[in-house]
């Protein structure tokens, strides 16, 4: 039986900002270029060069800080973080030390599956810095050296640091999912983990309850986390491993230096990483090449006003105004702002949020997925789909016929009326419908007997037969008329 304990998790997230050029020079930030084709004297650290800050990077950073409810500093400056590494050509990284552009703030973590209660995770700070290059160990060539590509050196990064407020690996994953969604809505980053636009390091330790006394175990930093799922798995593994180590050694925080471990997702284990010597002695000092940045209270207020509805607010609106459940609002909001706008128009025109949500998720989103297109490329406008929904709602079309009509609208880019005409769908007039129902009742005495005996469900067989005789009949109408006729017998 293991000791009662709490898991304490803090995250550091590096986000590449969606600028065209680097933070302090005009080199392109485009991913995937040939190695060392996007560098210049500034970003490869040639003497005598002068970095000049990218205005857009600062604006995107402020937009993010505003959306995360951070305090935005009216004065911020740049510092040099000194260390030697082959992928750091200047032997220092331009970063922010004691006066970051924003502090505090946070994000409410919600769980669409409601396995955990929503919790507010506080941030310590968000600061700006430049990225380093990329080193690749060249084992294939059998050479004992590494190759360095400096294309990424100088790319603008935003570092988001949370308080150690996260209590479970699941909560860590949900925090990251929500953060990514917010950043995507803001358009400040593409958040592509495969391309390194979003990178996560996690700090974790345990608070063990020793008969009333809380004992903190040594903090471990976990690196090499290549997906949000990997973050969750690595933290689940670490929590168990740390408890084992604690129960074996009794080591507390401060007994051993902070350890860095790399996560091996394929093997499902973390391994100790070799220590960079004196890695904590960065000898920060203000960068004399760069002047500080000042922003007025009015500009900060304007940035806050420009944030717009965040995902959490949109989910709440979809639930409040259109009666959607938490699962549905989550799916739609996760689809991005354009999809939300499509839904809003559809729901308003159709006058039925739940019907709009059903068709959006079961038909439109499936089509987007099958065709690998965005909602902007989807051939049926919200207005056209709303007309179709009106016919479904009015009983003129049932779900299946409606689907056929939508498929025709998608394939040929035509409106509801034209699509129905091309499918030969015409409404069956009431007399014809009543005549058909009388005919069916006469031909099916056994079913009629069942219905009379109270089995209203038996009428379903009559509907099936009606549709075979005339595919244009409305099943709901057939059912209603048949039951009326039987009752009157």
């Amino acid at each position: 039986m293991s000791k009662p304990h709490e898991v304490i998790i803090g995250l550091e997230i590096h986000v590449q900002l969606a600028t065209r050029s680097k933070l302090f020079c005009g080199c392109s930030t485009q991913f995937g270029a040939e190695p060392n084709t996007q560098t210049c004297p500034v970003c490869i650290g040639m003497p005598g060069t002068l970095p000049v800050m990218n205005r857009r990077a600062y604006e995107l950073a402020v937009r993010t800080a505003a959306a995360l409810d951070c305090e935005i500093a009216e004065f911020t400056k740049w510092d040099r973080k000194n260390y030697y590494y082959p992928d750091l050509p200047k032997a220092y990284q331009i970063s922010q030390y004691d006066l970051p552009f924003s502090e505090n703030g946070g994000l409410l973590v919600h769980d669409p599956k409601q396995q955990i209660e929503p919790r507010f995770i506080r941030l310590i700070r968000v600061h700006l810095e430049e990225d380093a290059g990329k080193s690749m160990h060249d084992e294939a060539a059998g050479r004992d050296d590494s190759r360095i590509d400096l294309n990424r050196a100088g790319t603008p990064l935003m570092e988001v640091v949370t308080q150690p407020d996260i209590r479970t690996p699941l909560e860590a994953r949900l925090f990251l999912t929500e953060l990514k969604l917010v950043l995507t809505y803001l358009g400040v980053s593409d958040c592509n983990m495969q391309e390194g636009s979003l990178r996560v390091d996690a700090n974790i330790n345990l608070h063990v309850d020793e008969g009333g006394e809380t004992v903190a175990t040594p903090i471990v930093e976990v690196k090499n986390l290549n997906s949000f799922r990997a973050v969750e798995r690595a933290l689940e593994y670490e929590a168990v491993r740390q408890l084992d180590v604690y129960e074996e050694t009794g080591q507390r925080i401060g007994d051993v230096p902070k350890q860095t471990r790399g996560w091996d997702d394929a093997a499902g284990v973390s391994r100790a990483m070799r220590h960079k010597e004196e890695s904590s002695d960065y000898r920060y000092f203000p960068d004399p090449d760069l002047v500080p940045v000042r922003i007025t209270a009015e500009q900060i207020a304007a940035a806050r006003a420009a944030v717009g509805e965040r995902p959490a607010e949109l989910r709440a609106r979809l639930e409040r105004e259109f009666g959607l459940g938490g699962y549905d609002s989550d799916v739609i909001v996760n689809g991005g702002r354009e999809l939300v706008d499509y839904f809003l128009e559809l729901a308003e025109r159709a006058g039925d949020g739940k019907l709009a949500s059903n068709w959006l998720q079961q038909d439109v989103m499936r089509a987007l997925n099958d065709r690998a297109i965005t909602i902007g490329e989807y051939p049926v406008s919200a207005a056209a789909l709303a007309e179709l929904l009106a016919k479904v709602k009015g009983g003129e079309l049932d779900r299946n016929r409606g689907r056929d009509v939508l498929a025709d609208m998608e394939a040929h880019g035509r409106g509801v009326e034209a699509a129905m005409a091309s499918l030969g769908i015409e409404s069956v007039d009431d007399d014809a419908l009543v005549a058909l129902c009388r005919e069916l009742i006469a031909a099916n005495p056994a079913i009629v007997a069942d219905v009379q005996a109270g089995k209203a469900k038996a009428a379903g067989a009559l509907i099936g037969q009606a549709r075979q005789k005339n595919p244009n009949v409305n099943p709901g109408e057939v059912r209603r008329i048949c039951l009326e006729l039987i009752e009157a017998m």
Partner: protein
Amino acid sequence: MSLTREEVEKVSLLARLRLSEAELDQMTRQLGTIVEYVELIAEVDTTGVEPMAHVADVANVFRDDEVRPSLPRDEALRGAPNHDDECYRVPAVMGD
């Protein structure tokens, strides 16, 4: 002496400088003199003086987010002690 020999050893390690015993002695002396000189500032009464982040009283020097041509790769790599026409080659980087 305002600097110890151990501090100079540590700084030289961080700066990747291999100093001989004689050089360490010399550096400790010379750097110590410089640090002592800078410490003169501590004698000034700075009560009520705002800390400054930069000697120039300038802020907000920005450039627009526009891509400008980068260096041709051969030119970028030319000064490196070792390269393979695509990448810089350096002694093996372990870890990460």
